[in-house]
């Protein structure tokens, strides 16, 4: 039944693409501005054969991956520390509250001044953007751990390290994961935006450069490849997350996806 409905959705996509093809060939719109879907596909295949676009996608992905991983590696420990210590939270929360409403893209010009237009700037901005959801969710997750768990752990005479590793972090993990999931899409968004503003390389630059020189099929190619890339990365991440949190799904009976 569900499968039937999904097939309908795919048919819908095919129909949309066909509609695009017919509309573009009908001559109602400028052929130059609105190329038929088949021409976009041919361009895409050509570009893939030349391989340049794959290299651009690789650069975008690797920068996003580095910034994203750095955010995970630093912000989960920081969030656990802040979540456990009320004093630390009192100290850092003003800084967090002030920086949080600031849209990450406005950091790009500042980072550019200090770090130039190289990879460092882009990775830093991605890192900055990814940090907040992970940090805030980790703090919340650790603070929301049920007191009963902690009492039990203490009465079992677990050491603080054991409590951290066996009780606090696992209990906070679902919420940490939701922060990490948000950050994953932020890493791609900020990565692409940074490439569009500081046009040195990457899929963001590829799209904007082709657009500004009115190479419309190539612009569509860039968008298509970006969509495929984002979709694949997202699917890959969800698979990993599902595997890492399989015990949680089992214990709550919660089913996702």
């Amino acid at each position: 039944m569900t499968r039937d409905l999904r097939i309908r959705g795919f048919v819908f996509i095919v129909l949309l693409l066909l509609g695009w093809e017919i509309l573009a060939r009908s001559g109602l719109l400028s052929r130059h501005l609105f190329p038929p879907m088949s021409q976009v596909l041919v361009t895409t295949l050509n570009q893939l054969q030349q391989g340049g676009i794959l290299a651009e996608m690789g650069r975008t992905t690797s920068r996003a991956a580095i910034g994203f991983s750095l955010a995970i590696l630093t912000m989960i420990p920081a969030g656990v520390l802040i979540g456990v210590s009320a004093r630390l939270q009192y100290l850092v929360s003003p800084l967090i509250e002030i920086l949080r409403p600031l849209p990450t893209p406005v950091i790009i010009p500042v980072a550019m001044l200090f770090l130039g237009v190289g990879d460092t700037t882009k990775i830093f901005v991605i890192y900055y953007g990814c940090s907040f959801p992970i940090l805030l969710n980790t703090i919340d997750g650790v603070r929301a751990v049920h007191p009963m768990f902690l009492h039990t752990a203490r009465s079992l005479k677990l050491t603080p390290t054991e409590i951290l590793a066996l009780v606090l972090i696992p209990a906070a993990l679902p919420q940490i994961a939701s922060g990490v999931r948000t950050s994953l899409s932020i890493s791609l968004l900020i990565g692409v935006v940074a490439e569009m503003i500081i046009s040195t390389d990457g899929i963001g630059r590829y799209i904007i450069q082709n657009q500004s020189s009115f190479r419309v099929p190539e612009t569509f190619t860039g968008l298509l490849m970006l969509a495929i890339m984002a979709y694949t990365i997202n699917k890959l991440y969800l698979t990993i997350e599902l595997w890492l949190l399989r015990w949680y799904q089992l214990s709550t009976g919660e089913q996702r996806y």
Partner: protein
Amino acid sequence: MIRVTKSLQGALPIIVIILLWEGIARAEIVYNVYFPSATVALQALITLLIAGDLIRDNTLTLMRAFAGFGLGVLLGTLLGIASASSRWIHGLLEPLVEFLRPMPSASIIPLAILFLGLKEITFIIIIAYAAAWPVYINTLNSLRGIDRVLEDTGKSYGLTLLEQLLEIRLPSAAPMIATGLRISLGIALISTIVAEMLIGQQGLGFFILTMAFTQRIPEMYAGIVLTGLNGFIVNALFAAAIRNLLHWHESLAATKEREIV
């Protein structure tokens, strides 16, 4: 009296941060041409606000953000309701949604500028596209997750489908839809800045980037501070509005009780 102390407590962190900023810049820990002190940046902000240019840019940015947000919310809620009400529509949309949702929303900016040119509507459509996603997802999920008993009660009272939607399903889903709206509002503000940075000739995003490229650093920081203020004020107003509008909902009423205890 209590209220005064409370708002002072709220302002304290801001004062601490500004003093810290001032101290770091004065001590020249960071290269201070690129990191002017808070007083220099605030002075630039005040000068620019009095001159009126920045007020014009800021008004434009906020208008774009709100217009885009409004359109996005309209689209997101309508599609969410349609998708939640009919398995047929849901099946139709889902593969497309699944494919497009992970794609960074800013990447449609080049496409929009190709087809629509540099008009106000281009900005609004870009912002609406980005803002529609969280509303769509939250409306869909909250409507689908409604308590069966509520739905069945409505049916047994013989309510029409529209009445069921307006009297039962939407009110019951309201808090989660509101969460979606709040996320969307933030996204609308961010998208506006991004769009203005990339294709704007006016607006706060354009202003910040231009100041950075022309090395008018205090003015750049003034723009950044203003962006932060926008986000802060809009968010606070929205949260207050939601609290007032949804005070009757059991989930919010329950939080209030907990706070009192």
